[in-house]
């Protein structure tokens, strides 16, 4: 184990002292000191699957694109068709490089006729803001990095709806327009839809989105409002089993749900089609956008990359030893050929056996194919599996 000295230049969430008081262990993540776990990552993982968990996502980037041509500007900057979004609708989309590689994966919300909210990974916030500015020049639209003015927490798990419905101080509708009763508005809020709201008189945006494979909500509000929101939710949800959850649980939850993570499954050297994200690249009914020519050419984003020519697949194994990021995948138990590399892996807390995502040669990517993981010198059998590994009940 290596002990990194504490780095005072790391940024802290507005909720930091609450996390300390809750006994959290912290990790350095994209320049932020964020909770990796509070008590037990397995217990936090289980709480999200069976009840609910609350995640501090203060590190995520929030970038506004505003103006009469905001939709067209985003169409030319991103892989999807943002101008086609209805107001209050959200879309998972990609920021591509000229070579078709993935600069970042984003969730874009249309928050008004002329307004979009782009949510970027913490490590890519500045790159995404700079790229959006450069790519939207010439359009009547402004790009504002509002990451420091917008806080974000996620309430995830099957009991999220009832907890949010019971939160005191939350009202839906904005300005003077009264909305439907809170309970109904939240219950009717569709997946990847957002709802303007107020919490304690301050603006908030409630979205039915998440990164855990469970039902849940992500709530944007001012950093000052984050603290009462966090405390109010924990108090309201305590009886329903709500617990604060850290980045360790978030990672195993998203892995079980087959959701890619930037820097692991996604990066500049991977094309969307390799990552199973071809559906997010809209070539029909859409004009030019950065990366389009490269995607249409079918060329690799980087021929030198270990991911080149390979496709993302799931692997499942027996026993307890997990393949982890960087481990090699072989076609036989001894000798043989290296056919891929693991990008994320863990002993699945829900399923009880090891799972991994890996980039492997297309010839061996058919589900059911027997492959071998090199776990620190020992080849362990693993079976190619379709993603996701876990789907919640009722889906």
């Amino acid at each position, binding site marked *: *184990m290596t*002990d990194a*000295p*504490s780095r005072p230049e790391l940024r802290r969430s507005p909720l930091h002292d609450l996390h300390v008081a809750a006994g959290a*262990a912290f990790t350095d993540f994209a320049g932020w000191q964020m909770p*990796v*776990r509070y008590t*037990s*990552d*397995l*217990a936090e*993982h289980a709480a999200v699957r069976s009840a609910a968990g609350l995640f501090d996502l203060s590190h995520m980037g929030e970038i506004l694109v505003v103006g009469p041509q905001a939709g067209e500007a985003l169409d030319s900057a991103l892989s999807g068709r943002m101008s086609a979004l209805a107001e209050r609708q959200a879309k998972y989309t990609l920021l591509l490089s000229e070579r078709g590689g993935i600069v970042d994966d984003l969730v874009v919300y249309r928050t008004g006729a002329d307004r979009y909210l782009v949510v970027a990974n913490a490590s890519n916030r500045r790159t995404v803001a700079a790229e959006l500015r450069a790519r939207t020049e010439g359009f009547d639209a402004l790009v504002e990095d509002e990451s420091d003015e917008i806080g974000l927490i996620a309430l995830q798990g099957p009991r999220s709806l009832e907890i949010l419905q019971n939160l005191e101080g939350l009202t839906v509708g904005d300005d003077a327009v009264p909305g439907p009763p809170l309970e109904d508005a939240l219950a009717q809020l569709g997946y990847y839809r957002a709802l303007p709201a107020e919490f304690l008189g301050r603006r908030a945006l409630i979205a039915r989105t998440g990164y855990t494979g469970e039902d849940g909500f992500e709530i944007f509000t001012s950093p000052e409002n984050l603290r009462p929101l966090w405390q109010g939710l924990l108090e309201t949800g305590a009886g329903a089993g709500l617990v604060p959850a850290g980045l*360790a649980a978030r*990672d*195993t939850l998203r892995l079980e749900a087959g959701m890619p993570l930037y820097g692991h499954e996604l990066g500049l050297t991977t094309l969307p089609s390799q990552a199973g994200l071809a559906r997010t690249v809209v070539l029909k009914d859409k004009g030019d956008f950065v990366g389009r020519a490269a995607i249409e050419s079918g060329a690799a984003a980087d021929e030198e990359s270990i991911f080149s020519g390979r496709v993302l697949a799931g692997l499942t194994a027996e026993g*307890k*030893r*997990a393949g*982890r990021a960087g481990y090699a995948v072989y076609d036989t138990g001894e000798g043989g050929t290296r056919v891929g590399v693991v990008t994320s892996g*863990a*002993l699945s*807390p829900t399923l009880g056996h090891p799972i991994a995502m890996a980039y492997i040669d297309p010839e061996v990517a058919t589900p059911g194919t027997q492959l071998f993981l090199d776990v*620190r010198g020992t080849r362990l059998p693993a079976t190619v599996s379709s993603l996701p590994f876990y789907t919640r009940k009722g889906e």
Partner: protein
Amino acid sequence: MAREDDLQYTAEHEWVDAADGVATVGITVYASERLGDVVYVDLPSVGDDVQAGAVIGEIESTKSVAELFSPVSGTVLEVNAAVVGSPELVNADPLGDGWLLKVGYTELPGLLTLTDYQALTKD
């Protein structure tokens, strides 16, 4: 904590309870907290000869893998079967029920005191 005071430590975050030629070995509270929930423990077999400083096993948590180093040279007398079956014992009681193995030794190498070890792990 009295138990902590009575133990000796290594820079690799193991504790050693040595008496009468038998060293009981586990990982420290600090290490168990840093690892997160332990889900798999790989230990040597009874009868194996081990060398001080050599890797003799692995401890896997949901997030990472840590190598287990032998703090002493000698022969493995016993491994904790309870921990192999229930790795969460390492988190629940790292200095007690979460012990890992017992090694028979003839000579004890220089180990750290609690004060030394705490100085090492102070952030």
